[in-house]
């Protein structure tokens, strides 16, 4: 869906983004991760042309973004930033309706869309629609920010550290919500973060940037199994590696034939949770059941550990 080709940005002789090329498939969630100053926000902001590239180009569905008037381009792309950037002088519904208004939707359609989004984000329209941003909690403000970005039904959503200002419990909830919304609408999402945990948790693919360059771009498993030497290796972290690998693998992949006694484990659970459960119960193996409740086999500590080993 997005093709980034040799994108470079230099400001005053300093290279902020250095010859980055990458593709993003439709319907996936791509995370750009890196330390602050790595150029990841600049890269993101060149996609909706908030920053003009020095060279290179961005294609969306095969169309060069430079060929689309920048305001039109941005109307089609949702944009969420840290600290949400809600308009303090507009109500929640006024904020969400911003882009639909710009696009000239009729009032009825806007009302319905605002209402649907509020319900989707678990904000009771009767209570929240007429509130002002300063009357909301941090988590509520963040949800309104995402709802506002989704208002005009964009197929692409850009998010710049969207959960950076949230405390851990609310952040984890917001991440779950984002995943379920992405699954539901099939929105293509590009998200920037400095938090590796978040990247592994959310990303279908992860792009690691450092010092203006794209160091590695691949699936979470690829990053864990064969991280590029140096920075990526350090960022991924060597001590947590086996556990991260386990959390990326489902129980179904470690299923062994045979029976076991005890409380069954879900097929869809990840291996990290399964191992944790096994250790806690003091069992070597437990039965596995599928969504219908039927026992499909068993999973063992040894079988799980085999998945945590460095692939040869």
């Amino acid at each position: 869906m997005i093709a980034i080709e040799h994108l470079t940005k230099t400001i005053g002789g300093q290279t902020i983004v250095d010859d980055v090329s990458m593709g993003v498939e439709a319907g996936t969630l791509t995370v750009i991760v890196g330390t602050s100053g790595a150029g990841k926000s600049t890269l993101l902001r060149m996609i909706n042309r908030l920053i003009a590239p020095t060279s290179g180009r961005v294609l969306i569905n095969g169309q060069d973004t430079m060929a689309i008037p920048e305001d039109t381009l941005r109307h089609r792309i949702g944009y969420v930033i840290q600290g949400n950037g809600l308009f303090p002088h507009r109500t929640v519904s006024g904020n969400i309706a911003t882009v639909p208004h710009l696009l000239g939707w009729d009032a009825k359609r806007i009302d319905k869309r605002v209402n649907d989004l509020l319900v989707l984000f678990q904000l009771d329209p009767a209570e929240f629609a007429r509130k002002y941003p300063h009357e909301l909690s941090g988590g509520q403000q963040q949800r309104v920010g995402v709802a506002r970005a989704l208002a005009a039904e964009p197929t692409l959503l850009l998010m710049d550290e969207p959960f950076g200002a949230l405390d851990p419990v609310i952040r984890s909830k917001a991440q779950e919500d984002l995943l379920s919304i992405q699954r539901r609408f099939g929105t293509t999402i590009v998200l920037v973060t400095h938090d590796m945990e978040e990247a592994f948790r959310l990303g279908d693919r992860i792009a690691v940037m450092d010092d203006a360059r794209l160091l590695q771009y691949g699936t979470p498993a690829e990053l864990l199994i064969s991280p590029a030497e140096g920075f990526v290796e350090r960022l991924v972290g060597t001590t947590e590696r086996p556990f991260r690998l386990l959390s990326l693998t489902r129980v179904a992949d470690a299923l062994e034939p045979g029976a076991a006694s005890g409380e069954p484990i879900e097929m869809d659970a990840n291996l990290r949770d399964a191992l944790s459960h096994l250790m806690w119960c003091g069992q070597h193996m437990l039965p596995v059941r599928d969504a219908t409740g039927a026992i499909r086999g068993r999973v063992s500590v040894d079988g799980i550990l085999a998945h945590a080993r460095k692939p040869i």
Partner: protein
Amino acid sequence: MIAPARDRGGPIRPDGDVVVGSGVDRLGALVAMMIGVGLLAVPLVTYRANRIVAGDTRSVMEALPLVGAVGLIVALVAIAGIAVLVRQPPLRLAAAAIGMALLFPAIGWAASYLTPPGNTFARVSPAAGFWLIGLALALLLADCLTRLRFGPWERLASLALAFALLAVLLASGSWNDVSLVREYAGRAESFWREGRQHLFLALGSLSAAILIGFPLGVLCHRARILKGATLQVLNIIQTIPSIALFGILMVPLGYLAAVSPLAHALGIRGIGAAPALVALFLYSLLPVVANTVVGLDQVAAPVVDAARGMGLSRRQQLFQVKLPLAFPIILTGIRIVLVQNLGLATVAALIGGGGLGTFIFQGIGQTAMDLVLLGAIPIVAMAFAAAVVLDAVVDLASGVRP
């Protein structure tokens, strides 16, 4: 973070008032003392045989018939007692208001009582006692109003009420023998003319400053280079003393009137209202431009970023996001200008521009205090009213935000 509960000050209530133990209220004590001195130690009014000569003073007992004097003293002593002992702001407010409502008619009464019937030359004017008691009551009033934390509508209502009471006092004729009103009666027509001229000077220059300064501020917000230079020039203009600027502007305007019949036909002259208007306009530009720039600049970066990211054009960003958020600060600039202009317009009288300053400078020339007050009191009242009204508007405009 815990607010600094300054030591020994006792607990601080959320509204900021210090809860001091029982006992006398110190402001109340000051108010009571001022009332006491005003009643007993200094004269209430001055009596003069005509408007120029030096006068003799009259104490409360001499200025009013016995029953009136005793009544006034008893009432004011009671109010002083309330100021010292009673702590509830509404009660204190009522006491201060009643005090005002007694003091002003009392002066009118004293004037009628002291002026021999049919004598139109004698002048009775308020003296130190009146001013001191008035100041004490005003302090008490201001303190109560501050403590009550009125919202904008309540403040506007209080202002309207105060002006309505003043109008009733003057319309009732009870002050007709007070020197100030006599001074007015002799020149009612020119008083209103100069008053209108004063407003015209202050508001006309303000309108021009908004028309020019506001777009200029938007431009300065967009072009950094322009901002530095513009604000520097406007700052320097502010340092030129008003009477000099008024005077200096006589040169180009006089020249313009001489060479351009159109300018002449428009009433532009080297002296008079034109240089005054231009000077006030120049002084007004800085607050308007500076506050517009500051207001636009202080809109939070994420808000602007979000607006851009959602595809608002520059015009939409300005009109839909930045200006609404900058509005209260721009209004504050307009408040500064209006209050400043109402004061500075006084100087216009020196270059033939008219306005209420005419009476002030005439009064200074004739050493006629009443004439000075006839000019000064309306100016202060207008500036005060403008400040209260615009403060309330600013509060209303920024009301939806924290």
